[in-house]
C-alpha cells in the first residue's frame, strides 16, 4: 500500500469532501448529545422542560437516532472514503455520489428529528423509529456513498485490496440489506415484528458501526505506529466470524419473551461465539502496539484509538456475558444496559471515529488541531464516559437487585437516583468534550492555522503489506 501521488486538485477536492463530512457529523454530535444531556437531567429533575417537543419520550429517540445516523454514520463515512482512497493509492472516486450521499444523510437526520419531535414514528423500537420514507433517504445515502467507496476500491492502483476495505464495503452491504428487511412492514406483525426488531437493533450496531470502526482502525493504527498490522490472518478471521455470528444473536434482546426458546438459545450461543471476532480484532490491535506504547504519548490520535480498542474489548465481552440468561434475570430492563450501550457506542465507536478524524483529517487538509484542546477533549470524554458507565452499571445492578428482592417498584427508582445524578455529571463532561472537539474540527477544516509540528502526522506507509 502506498500513497500514490494524486494531483493537487483532486487532493484538495478530497480534503473538502472529508472536511464536509466531519463538519456535518460534528454538528449532529453537538445537537444529539445536547439532547442527551437534557435527557440525563430529566431523571433527577423530571419537571425540567415540560413540553411535548422537549419531552423524554420524543427526545430519547432523537438522541439515539441523531447520534447513530447523524454523528456516527456521517463521521465514519467521511473517514471510510479517505481510507479507501489511501489504501487504493488513488483519489476518492465518484465524488458526486459522495456529496449527494452526504446531503441525503443530512436530509434524513433533519427529517427524522423533526418527525420524531412531532410524535410521528414507526413505533417505539430502538434505532428504527424513523418512518419509512426517512429511512429510505438514509438508505439512499448509504447506496450513494457506498457507490463512491466501491468505485474507489475498484479503480485502485494497488493490486491487492487491503483488509480495511473488506470491513468497509461489508459494512455498507450489510446495512443496506438489513435496512430493507427491517423497514418493509408488510410481513411483520406482533411477535413477528419482535423477531425482526431483535435482529435489526443489534445488526444496526454490530454490522454497521463495528465494521466501519474496525476497517478504519486497520488503516489508522498501523499508519500512526508506522509498522504493519500484527496479523493479516487474524483480521480475516475476525471479518468472517463477525459476519457469520453477529446476525444470529439479535434475539438476546428478548430473552424470556414468547420468542421460541431455541431461537433465544441460538442467540446466546453465538453471543458467546462473538468472543472470537472481538478478541481476534482487539488482540490484533494490541499485538500491533506491543513494545510501542510510548507512541501513545506522542500522538493526537493514538490515545483515542487506545481507548476505542480497550472499550471495544471490554464492551463487547461484557455484551457476551449480558446475553447469559442468569445475568439477564437481574440486569435486563435496568440502566446497566444503557451503560453498556454507551461503553460500546461511545467508548468504542465514537472514540475510534475521533481517532480516525484526528489521525487522517489533518493529513489531507494540512491543518493541525490544537494540542491543548485535543488533550482536554480526550480527558473530558474519557473520564466523562467512564463515570457515565460506572454509575449506570452500579445503579442498574441496584435496580435489578431491588426487583429480585420483590421490593415495590419505587424503591428501585430511589436506589438508582444518586447514580442518575452521577451520570448527568459524566454526561456534562462528555458534552464539554464535544464542544472542544468542535473547535478542533474548525481548526482542522475551515480554520486558517497552518499545520504545525504535529509529530503524530509524520507516520508514513505504516500499513504496508
Amino acid at each position, binding site marked *: 500500500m502506498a500513497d500514490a501521488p494524486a494531483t493537487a486538485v483532486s487532493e484538495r477536492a478530497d480534503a473538502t469532501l472529508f472536511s464536509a463530512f466531519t463538519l456535518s457529523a460534528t454538528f449532529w454530535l453537538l445537537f444529539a448529545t445536547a439532547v442527551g444531556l437534557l435527557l440525563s437531567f430529566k431523571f433527577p429533575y423530571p419537571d425540567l422542560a415540560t413540553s411535548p417537543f422537549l419531552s423524554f419520550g420524543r427526545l430519547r429517540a432523537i438522541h439515539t437516532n441523531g447520534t447513530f445516523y447523524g454523528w456516527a454514520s456521517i463521521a465514519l463515512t467521511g473517514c471510510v472514503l479517505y481510507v479507501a482512497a489511501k489504501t487504493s493509492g488513488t483519489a476518492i472516486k465518484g465524488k458526486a455520489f459522495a456529496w449527494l450521499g452526504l446531503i441525503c444523510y443530512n436530509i434524513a437526520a433533519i427529517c427524522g428529528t423533526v418527525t420524531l419531535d412531532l410524535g410521528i414514528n414507526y413505533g417505539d423500537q430502538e434505532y428504527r423509529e424513523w418512518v419509512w420514507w426517512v429511512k429510505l433517504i438514509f438508505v439512499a445515502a448509504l447506496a450513494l456513498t457506498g457507490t463512491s467507496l466501491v468505485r474507489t476500491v475498484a479503480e485502485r492502483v494497488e493490486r491487492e485490496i487491503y483488509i480495511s476495505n473488506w470491513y468497509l464495503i461489508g459494512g455498507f452491504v450489510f446495512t443496506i440489506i438489513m435496512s430493507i428487511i427491517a423497514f418493509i412492514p408488510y410481513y*411483520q406483525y*406482533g411477535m413477528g415484528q419482535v423477531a425482526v426488531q431483535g435482529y435489526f437493533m443489534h445488526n444496526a450496531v454490530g*454490522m454497521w458501526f463495528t465494521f466501519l470502526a474496525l476497517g478504519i482502525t486497520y488503516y489508522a493504527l498501523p499508519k500512526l505506529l508506522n509498522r504493519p498490522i500484527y496479523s493479516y490472518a487474524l483480521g480475516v478471521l475476525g471479518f468472517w466470524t463477525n459476519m457469520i455470528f453477529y446476525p444470529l444473536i439479535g434475539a438476546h434482546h428478548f430473552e424470556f419473551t*414468547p420468542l*421460541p426458546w431455541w431461537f433465544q438459545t441460538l442467540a446466546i450461543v453465538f453471543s458467546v461465539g462473538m468472543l472470537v471476532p472481538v478478541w481476534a480484532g482487539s488482540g490484533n490491535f494490541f499485538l500491533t502496539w506491543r513494545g510501542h506504547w510510548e507512541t501513545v504519548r506522542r500522538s493526537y490520535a493514538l490515545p483515542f484509538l487506545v481507548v476505542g480498542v480497550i472499550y471495544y474489548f471490554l464492551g463487547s465481552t461484557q455484551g457476551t456475558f449480558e446475553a447469559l440468561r442468569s445475568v439477564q434475570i437481574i440486569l435486563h*430492563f435496568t440502566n446497566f444496559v444503557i451503560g453498556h450501550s454507551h461503553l460500546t457506542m461511545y467508548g468504542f465507536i465514537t472514540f475510534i471515529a475521533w481517532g480516525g478524524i484526528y489521525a487522517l483529517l489533518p493529513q489531507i487538509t494540512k491543518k493541525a488541531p490544537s494540542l491543548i484542546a485535543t488533550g482536554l477533549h480526550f480527558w473530558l470524554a474519557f473520564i466523562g464516559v467512564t463515570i457515565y458507565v460506572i454509575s449506570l452499571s452500579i445503579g442498574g445492578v441496584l435496580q435489578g437487585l431491588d426487583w429480585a428482592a420483590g421490593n415495590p417498584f419505587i424503591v428501585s427508582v430511589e436506589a438508582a437516583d444518586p447514580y442518575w445524578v452521577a451520570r448527568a455529571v459524566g454526561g456534562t463532561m462528555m458534552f464539554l468534550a464535544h464542544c472542544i472537539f468542535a473547535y478542533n474540527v474548525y481548526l482542522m477544516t475551515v480554520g486558517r492555522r497552518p499545520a504545525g509540528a504535529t509529530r503524530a502526522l509524520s507516520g508514513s506507509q505504516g500499513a504496508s503489506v
Partner: protein
Amino acid sequence: MSGRGMNNVWAIVLSTALVYTVLSALMAVIPGITMSHMAPTPGLKPYTRQERLGRQVYVSEGCAYCHSQVVRPIREDAVYGRPSVGGDFVFQTPELLGDHRNGPDLTDIGERQPSTVWQLIHLWDPRALVNESIMPRYTWLFTVKARAAPGDVVVPVPPGFGPSTGVVVATKRALHLVDYLESLKQVPLTKSAVMK
C-alpha cells in the same frame, strides 16, 4: 499474506451480500413471517377504536422507552401478571415489548390500576400521586379552562398540583390513552391454550 480470491471488489460485494442475505432470511425474515401468524390467546379481543387511538398516543409519546409490556416466566416478573405467551401479541403492531423499566411493566395495568381518575391525575402530574416518581408530566394532553363546559372531563387534581386558577380538562388524546391503559388486561390462560 493476501486475500486470495478477494482481490476483486465485486467478489467482496457479492459474497458478503449473499452470506448476509441468507443469514438475515433465517434470523429475521422467516421468523418474522411465521411469528406474525400466531393464533390469538383464547378470549383476546381486538382493540376498540378508542383503544387503538390511545395506543397511538402511547407510541407517539414514546411511553415504551420506560414501560415494558412483556411478563417473563421468572420470579422477578410475577408481580406484573402471568407469563406472556405469543398469542397475547397478535393485535400488537407496532410491538411495544420495550427493553427498559424506568417505570413498571404495564402488561396488566388495567387490572392493577383500573381507576380512570387515578390515570388522568397521574398523567397530569405523577408526583401528585407518587412523590418519588420520575415520570414526566403530560400536561399537553390536558387543557386548562376557566370553567368546565358541559361534557368536559374535569380532572380532580389534588391541591397544590393544579393551575392557580381554572380547571384541568382532559383532551380526547388523554381519554383515549386512558381507554388504552384500562384495556391492558391479560386474558386468563386455560390449560388448552398453554398446551398449544
